[in-house]
């Protein structure tokens, strides 16, 4: 069968009386006779003179519609589009993802951060030292839990969500970074700089604000996570 290169395929655009050629799966078809390919345009979207292998996979019909057309050649080897396989995770990762690690792990930093903020607020109002201590413990645990959530979220993004980089994933990434910064900054201040709950110290108030800020941050992360998972 005749080998058809990219330039010859492109000349089969169907425009100005030219014939309409389309390539699918390495085969080149002449669709000039089809009413659905007038002037080399199909459903106002697809143009002749191109490799439509990918487009036909997304079409409401399959390749069977090409059976009625004459195959006039095969795409020259260097032009044939390589079939892109969907990235399959390694077996261990696949088995891990089946256990839904991200939905499980996110509950820990979310709950701990909200509780930390709540007990910080209670401490600021009631001045009970035990509330302040509990806040610290919650922040420590939330900080330890965050990397697990983030890494499972990353795995999910790579293998379940095809690494798309749209607004929602940018926002989640930014919020995750903000959360980690809040957590580490809070712990550095509380464990290294201040010696204990000291409301007369401006630095301690920075710690208090950081602790309180964790709650809206994790709630926003949860909200956008929900938007990814559930249709609105």
């Amino acid at each position, binding site marked *: 069968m005749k080998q058809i290169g990219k330039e010859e395929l492109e000349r089969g655009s169907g425009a100005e009386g030219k014939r309409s050629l389309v390539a699918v799966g390495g085969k080149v078809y002449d669709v000039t006779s089809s009413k659905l390919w007038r002037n080399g345009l199909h459903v106002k979207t697809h143009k002749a003179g191109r490799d439509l292998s*990918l*487009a036909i*996979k*997304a079409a409401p019909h399959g390749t069977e519609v090409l059976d009625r057309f004459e195959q006039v050649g095969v795409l020259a080897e260097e032009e044939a589009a390589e079939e*892109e396989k*969907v990235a399959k995770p390694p077996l261990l990762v696949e088995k891990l993802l089946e256990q839904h690690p991200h939905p499980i792990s996110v509950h820990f930093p979310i709950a701990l951060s909200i509780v930390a903020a709540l007990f910080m607020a209670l401490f600021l109002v009631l001045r009970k030292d035990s509330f302040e201590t509990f806040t610290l413990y919650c922040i420590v645990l939330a900080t330890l839990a965050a990397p697990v959530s983030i890494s499972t979220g990353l795995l999910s993004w790579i293998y*379940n*969500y*095809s690494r*798309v980089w*749209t*607004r*929602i994933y940018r926002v989640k990434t930014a919020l995750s970074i903000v959360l980690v910064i809040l957590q580490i900054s809070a712990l550095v201040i509380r464990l290294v700089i201040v010696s204990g709950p000291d409301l007369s110290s401006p630095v301690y108030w920075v710690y208090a604000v950081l602790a309180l800020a964790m709650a809206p941050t994790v709630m926003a992360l949860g909200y956008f996570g929900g938007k*990814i*998972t559930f*249709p609105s």
Partner: protein
Amino acid sequence: MSEQTKQLERLIEVIVRMIPKERQARDVYRDTAAWAPTEMTRILFEHLSLEEEKHESKLQAVLKILQKELAEAKKKSKS
């Protein structure tokens, strides 16, 4: 970000949300077909599993097309 870019991103987010659901549906039907008590139900669930696989393939193809369109739209808006 142009309106076209925003719309393409939203479409991509929809597609990407649905692909794992098609995969899960496929797995549920396939696993059910494995223990289906009658020949009729086994054939039915195997058929449903194949349909979900076709849906996933279509969504994967649409995703690739939309990602290309998004890349082109972003290039256009930068120039």
